[in-house]
């Protein structure tokens, strides 16, 4: 019985104008997406990334001559690897910074009477705003990625297929004809759902395969097993998302008497959920929590560092650390000063960035509960390793590496008996060379399992919503009048 209904639905849809449009539209968009990605500067970015990594490694190796120089200059910089699946979820990727500077080394002289001391700038995490080169005169309202094609266009197509699923049949009179036979209403609903789902899934799968084929053949990216697993997950999430909208269409269609009314209502819901909420609510919500402006923050930072400077009035009390036989107390005093100076700045930088992050995260949390499209977009971003969450993980990984690096310096320093073991001052640490292989390397934690962990709840929410909508459509259809 179910199979018959499904077959009828599928045949019906396959021969309709809508299906032809859908196939044409999806193919066009997916092919465009692939071509744009292939023609983009992804290769260039990847080679830039490896060049930058090599440069960082060279710099670190050069400063491995002396441990205290390594301690001063630090890990030099952290670069974010361009994601291979950027064509799947690419919104705002170009606006996010691509690296964090972590380099010290220039010196500042400090004088006091006849003594002077050149203290080198300790490395701190410097959250620079470098983004990949782009033409900012061209505005990108929507990036043509999978999130957009499936999130906006496919949901629209789902509505187009289901708005007259029940109400159209009711108008044509075939609904009462069908139900005059011993057809259970549940089977009818399920058959319609499955029929519409297959009708939309087939062009979608074809489009995705075509897209992946073009991307693969071009050789611009190399898709390993990790990437394929992610792509598989993204396809699964897309299907869940589409079935959510099919369920929505069935609910509204079952309740309305005329198909034009159901189309109107569905389009209204679609415009609000898919177009408006993701774009407006974010900016409204982000005004809820105020973040100090760049100018205010810089003033704060200057004031704090000036305070630290002022507190060191008697810095040459015990002499200068660069004297031939320096006094331990002098080294300790200067170490305190230098560490406090750079820690204050670093702490303020971290806090400022964290407050910006908190603002965005609050807005994202609110947006997630407002529209399934935002849930879908965030899931796709996590799976494709792009977007705001990736950037936040990148910053967290950089901070973790900062701790590891400092621990490494301190541990290596302990093995040198001649050093004063005072962190941080150049003269307080060991002078011996360090093998560059032992220096901890920066690695982002990007694995498929991590991605799954992050998106598990989101996918769960989408699944629950789709099932819920299907149940509602079934229940509301059970008692409605079919004449």
């Amino acid at each position, binding site marked *: 019985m179910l199979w018959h209904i499904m077959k009828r639905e599928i045949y019906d849809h396959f021969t309709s*104008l*809508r299906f032809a*449009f859908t196939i044409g*539209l999806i193919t066009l*968009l997916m092919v*465009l997406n692939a071509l*744009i*990605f292939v*023609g*983009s*500067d992804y290769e260039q970015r990847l080679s830039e990334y490896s060049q930058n990594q090599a440069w960082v490694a060279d710099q670190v190796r050069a400063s491995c001559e002396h441990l205290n120089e390594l301690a001063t200059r630090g890990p030099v910089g952290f670069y974010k690897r361009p994601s291979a699946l950027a064509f799947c979820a690419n919104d*705002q990727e170009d*606006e*996010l*910074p691509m690296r964090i500077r972590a380099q010290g080394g220039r010196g500042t002289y400090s004088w006091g009477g006849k003594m002077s001391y050149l203290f080198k700038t300790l490395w701190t995490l410097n959250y620079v705003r470098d983004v990949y080169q*782009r*033409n*900012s*005169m*061209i*505005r*990108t*309202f*929507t*990036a*043509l990625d999978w999130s*957009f094609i499936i999130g*906006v*266009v496919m949901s*629209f197509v789902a509505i*187009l297929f289901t708005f*007259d699923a029940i109400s159209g049949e009711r108008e044509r009179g075939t609904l009462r004809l069908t139900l005059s036979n011993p057809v259970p209403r549940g089977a009818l609903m399920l058959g319609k759902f499955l029929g519409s789902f297959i009708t939309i899934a087939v062009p979608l799968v074809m489009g995705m395969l075509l897209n992946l084929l073009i991307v693969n053949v071009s050789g611009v990216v190399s898709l390993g097993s990790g990437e394929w697993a992610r792509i598989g997950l993204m396809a699964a999430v897309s299907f869940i998302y589409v079935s959510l909208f099919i369920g929505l269409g069935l609910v509204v269609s079952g309740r309305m008497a005329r*198909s*034009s*009314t159901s*189309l*109107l209502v569905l*389009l*209204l819901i679609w*415009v609000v959920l898919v*177009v*408006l909420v993701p*774009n*407006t609510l*974010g*900016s*409204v919500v*982000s*005004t809820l929590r105020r*973040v100090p*402006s*760049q*100018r205010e*923050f810089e003033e704060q930072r200057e004031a704090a560092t000036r305070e630290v400077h002022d507190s060191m009035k008697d810095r040459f009390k015990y002499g200068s650390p660069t004297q031939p036989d320096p006094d331990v107390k002098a080294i300790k005093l200067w170490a305190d000063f230098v560490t406090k100076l750079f820690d204050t700045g670093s702490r303020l930088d971290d806090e400022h960035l964290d407050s*910006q*992050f908190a*603002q*965005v995260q609050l*807005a994202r949390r609110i947006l997630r509960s407002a529209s399934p499209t935002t849930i879908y977009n965030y899931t796709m971003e996590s799976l494709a390793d792009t977007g*705001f969450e990736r950037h936040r993980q990148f910053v967290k990984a950089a901070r973790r590496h900062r701790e590891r690096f400092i621990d490494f310096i301190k541990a290596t320093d302990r093995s040198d008996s001649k050093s004063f073991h005072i962190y941080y001052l150049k003269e307080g640490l060991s002078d011996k060379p360090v093998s560059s292989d032992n220096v901890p390397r920066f690695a982002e934690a990007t694995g498929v399992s991590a991605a799954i962990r992050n998106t598990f709840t989101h996918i769960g929410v989408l699944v629950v919503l789709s099932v819920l909508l299907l149940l509602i459509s079934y229940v509301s259809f059970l008692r409605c009048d079919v004449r």
Partner: protein
Amino acid sequence: MIWIVTARETLDNLMSLKFLFGTVLCLALVVISTVVSLRDYQSRMDEYNTAVADFNEKPDSFYFKMYRKPEVLSIFARGFEKRFGNVAGLIYMPVQASGFMGASEGAEFSAEFASIDFVFVVRVIVSLLAIFLAYDAVSGEYERGTLKLMLSRPVPRSSVILGKLISGAICLLIPLIMSFIIGILIIQLVGGLAFTSEEWLRISLMFVVTVLCVMSFYMIGLVVSSRTRQASTSLLILLLIWIAGVFLIPGVATSAMDRYRRMASTPDKDVAAINSDFYRRKQKGPGPEYHPNNIDAYAKYRIKWDELEDEKDRSIWNLRKRYLDRLYSQADLVQWICRLSPSESCMYASEALARTYVGAYRNFMDYVRSYHGPHREMIRLIWKDRDRYREETKKFKKLIEVPPVTFSASLSAALPDICALAILNVLLFMLSVLFFIRYDVH
């Protein structure tokens, strides 16, 4: 006869559910977007005023900044207002790339939340409403049988189609006028801002442009409706056209152009080469007789150095200008492609009228650059003519105000879009009349 048809159509549309939904949605969004934009504008204005006041307190003739004032009309059409910097630093060296200033810039992640502005709401929502009003204008009447009923009377077909057009215009003008009034009221009452007469003129032109955009969507609806037999088919086609016009065409054009960057590579490497060459030549600098304490000899050395520096800056500027021109031409090409969609044309015209288009930024940077030459000459007076330098810096107390984009400049920037919309409207009008006259009513 036309007026009877018009009256009937208008009443029909006004009392329909779709009109109610569309108008309510449009007005709600206008309120939200205007309030958000207004608050953002006010915080940017505060930042600007604070920065200017700080500068006036302690003007620095050696290193000073020029600020770009936030535009009031950016509340209507946000454009590039927040994408580009609005402070440029002049530090004797060639103009540094402009920095940002303002409450909403600090967070680079604020780009995460694109906000919609007034013009977006009007051109997207009201155009959707226009499509909903138009899709069953002819094909729906045909399905219901009322079309042949009406045409069996001595009603000329042209009157019918004209009546439908006029009624559509009336019905769509209502949400448009209400949106503009509400927007203006919010800005004036809640924000306490007043518009100058030039700004009123710009706003009224923006209104005209949005009317043209919405009417073109309505007429596209009429054209499609009078080519199909079933209302649902025409609705399907029209919705696809709407999606293409509002999302796909701009999305594809901007994605393709933005990503396809192989044509324009930054000149940074060449600039670095020129710089290092300059410093190398400078190293072979003055001989032992040019000692900094010997002021006249130092002055002679510096004057020679000035020529080298001018030459270096000219070549760097040539490279940068070529690169910038390529970027601008890329952006222009994108604009031309996007003009296929009336909704995009409307956006470009509104931005040009609101002075938030790319040209406004270009205008600002060009002015700053033109000021750089005289400023540098003034600095160079330190070693050329000390007394005149002292005079000049005394005169240098006030902040340089960059002249805003003039009305005629805005108008000429908006002209291609206004013309495109007008031509589209005329064309679609003729097409809809033509197709309706040839519509088979049986």
